[in-house]
């Protein structure tokens, strides 16, 4: 089970944080700081796995963004890399050639996609198609409602 998922860029700016187990604010800040300190100085061509306390850390860099997940002891690290990859693919599909700016300005969308993909730290839906459908449905609903609300009442 994933414990947390963090997205941060090369300057160490946090772009997205998701905690799958209850974590106190202090603990969160500590984890974020430690992760950024651990991951950023890693050289290219070193392995994508780290250890932090009793957790396994799996990270991968996509363009300027680092995706970093904390896993429990018995989890499969290689599979976690695929989880990160699938999330990137989902973002890519939704935004169309996703870049860091998309995630900065539409981070709530990135959260919604993540909610469709992972639930409680476990993979819920692996199909790119299905995630997209539910995203679109929710988006359309929001649009129609907005339209409806903005119409003057006769």
């Amino acid at each position, binding site marked *: 089970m994933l414990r947390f998922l963090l997205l941060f860029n090369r300057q160490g700016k946090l772009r997205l944080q998701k905690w799958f187990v209850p974590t106190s604010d202090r603990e969160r800040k500590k984890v974020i700081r430690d992760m950024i300190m651990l991951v950023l100085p890693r050289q290219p061509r070193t392995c994508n796995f780290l250890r932090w306390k009793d957790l396994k850390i799996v990270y991968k860099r996509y363009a300027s963004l680092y995706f970093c997940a904390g896993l429990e002891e018995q989890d499969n690290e290689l599979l976690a*890399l695929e989880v990160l990859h699938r999330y990137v693919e989902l973002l890519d599909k939704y935004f169309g050639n996703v870049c860091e700016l998309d995630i900065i300005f539409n981070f709530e969308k990135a959260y919604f996609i993540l909610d469709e993909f992972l639930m409680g730290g476990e993979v819920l839906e692996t199909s790119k198609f299905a995630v997209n459908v539910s995203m679109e449905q929710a*988006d359309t609903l929001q649009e129609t*409602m907005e339209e409806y609300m903005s119409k003057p009442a006769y």
Partner: protein
Amino acid sequence: MSDVVEKTLTALPSLLSLDSQPGSAKLSSNSKLGNLIRGITELTSKHEEEKLIQRELLLIKEQVSSPNTTMRQMKELMVRAIYCEMLGYGVSFSYIHAIKLAQQGNVLEKRVYLAVSLFLNEGHELLLLLVNTVLKDLQSTNLIEVCMALTVVSQMFPKDMIPAILPLVEEKLNHPREIIRRKAVLALYKFYLIAPNQVQHIHNKFRKALCDKDPGVMSASLHIYLQLIQENPEGYKDLAPSFVTILKQVVGGKLPMDFNYHSVPAPWLQIHLLRILSLLGKNDQTSEIMYEILDESLRRAEMNHNITYILYECVKCIYTIHPKSGLLEKAAKCIGNFVLSPKINLKYLLKALTYVVQQDPKLALQHQMTIIECLDHSDLIIKRETLELLFRITNDQNVTVIVEKMLDFLRISEDDHTTIDLVGKVAELAEYAPDNEWFIDTMNTVFSLGGDLLQPDIPNSFLKLLSEFDSVEEDKKLRLFAVNSYISLLQGDSSKLPQRFLQVICWVLGEYSHLREDLEPGVVVRLLAKLLDMKSSSSETKCWVLMAMTKLCPGGAALALVHDVSETYSSSLDTMLRQRAQELQILSQDSELQAKVLPRSASMEPVEVDSSLSFLDGFVSEALAAGAAPYKPPHQRQEELSRSKLNLEPYGLSLPISISSCSITDRQSPTLLSISSGLSGDSTDFSHKGSTALKLDGVKRLWGRDGYLAQKEQTEEAPRIEAASAVRSADQLGDNNALNSQTPNPTPSPECDQEKQQLASSLFVGLASQSTPAELSALSHSKVTLLFSKQNLDVSACHVQKEDSVVLVVFISNCSDSFLHQIRLQVDSEELETEEYGAMWLAFSHDTKQNLTLIHDGRDPLAATLDVLKRKLQLHVVEIIVEAIVACCLQQDQPCLMHCRMHAGMLAVWLRSPVPDLPDCLLYCCQ
């Protein structure tokens, strides 16, 4: 005119929606969030950012509390609040508004749940306000509302409120839409994790979810099953065939294309199933039905090079379940490919070799050069994993090299957690010490590197070891060496030493400095007094110093120093310190009393303690009279608990696997470690260290059986080479190249390579497999387990499969070269007293329980059964107390204690022994 109209029209959409257009990737150039983000990026200092955010937050605060803000604006404000929170600023004022919004909003604002779930933690008091909204949404007919409610429920929900919504979530398991069913299953999984007892009644519904026609719902239910099976593998054995069938279908590509991930059929589902199978097949014959499908998925995963994650999981599974030789070979080959792979992420999987090592240490030898290379890898993580592997193959022949490598790593490691972990491991390994000097030196390094992060049990067990050594002569030498080394440490710069280390030093000097006859107690006291003056010393350390001084009791000039010290600290604010100072003051003045309180000669004898606590008898009888329940010992309580549940499962024959598999998964305790090294054929007893004949013997077997006969001589010499001749090293060059041609890695230079070779041979020395008699090799048998060894004799046991039965074979093997003229095996029983028995019972850790049927032959069934056991096992009955019998059996120097108790027509037997396999073997005989 038309121009104006056009401009208005283009501006319209942005006026209507403050937010970016949904679904579009375009940045909303004039949204407030956009402005905020852009504003932040333009800033140069953290200070400016802080100011900007504070201003922004004030604005948000004002707007959210204003009654005129529309829903849509509120939503936008929430998004900005989330952003500020992500930057690390407190936005607690907006929490209540987020909840309010979720409560009153229609579908449009439901996405505010997101804000709630990001802001609030499980257990936050405001969450209670959300329960009603969630309830309402779960009952909604709108699909999206239900989805969002389920998502929020699975993310954070107050534990005590689960019963309120549980029926509704349960109901969703029958929802016509699969996405709802799937989310409901995961929500229930989450409930199970936080409050398992509340979802107990719906276990059969989980089964229904497992059989759901939609594969997505089925795969969601596997999360629950994985958890359930982890907790109780016995209860779900009946499902094993179903899981195998599901896996067969998945691997066979029977799932819809939707589930494919880069042309791999449902990898997440496969991994889950593999993990479940490995849990179910552990130590169990059910493994048999899995062999075929494991073979198949291994084959399919190998065809496609990308799916290493499935290969890795398969290998883990194969090594966990009941072993099958063909599969093991394939798995070992697979790990070999990982290790040799140029991909760095696969190199990391080097640790998978630990599984191989547990099964067959010889296979690790094939990869020794790779392991050596990983040990020098520039990536610290790889290095660390390699050390982890080496830790598991340590025996008393390679311990010095491995510990040296670990200490090297410790010196460069900066991570506290790693340091604590590794220091613990080194301390564990140090018990393999080849000699006293090495042991003390290593422990010194452990203490100084570990600093005050050290687990407190390390110094404790070190001191314990020091105080209760077996032989008097060895003992004295060890202590004397410790004293010498500490004196010289204190004479140097002691201000850098960690507090824990100082405390250890104080204790040792206090207890044992009298062993060094040429040392005046006054000198020691002066050294100790120096510690008191150091600013860095904590008051705890000062207590230890004062205690050591009390024990030393010097005469002459140092006495004045002691007086000074006790004078100073007897008015200390710290009560502990004050007490120690008072003790010191009084005892140093009265040497007669001092000798009585702290007798020097008897310091090794245990202090007499009234373990029956008879002085509390009055208190107990008073409490009993007042109506308190009588005390029950822990095992009795346990038994009463187990009585309520009937165990219907047959007991598997699980003797050898249980050892190997548990040492694979868990961080090893020292006892486990010593088994695994015992398994690896290391028959050297601690007391026999230094006998070269024995060492060479272990090595010889290893290389002889492995086909590396060419290396034989070199390995034998390896431990000594480092100190010795260059001529010999030149001789070995040829051999080195021979081995290198087997590994695909290019040789950098002969010198460098030779170093590695030497390292390799010193690392892998003593890693041989247990030899089995020729008669056995023809039959299929489980792993040979070494029960105990004495001098050159090993007594081992294994299960052997005959045509129609499984037999436990216990055999004796001669591991020396000399012929034995006569072997007399005698199973001795020694007489034991009940008290001794009690003490031993508590000291032994390996506990096994079994129910036996009683024998009825007309006499008292208890006596009859005992008689049979007595005859068969050479038991010696210690005492029979009312209904509980205490019996004990001793085999050579390895005692095994048995405790029997009658109930419900059965004889419940507990066995305990310091040798982990002995109870298992004996129980087997009992049956």
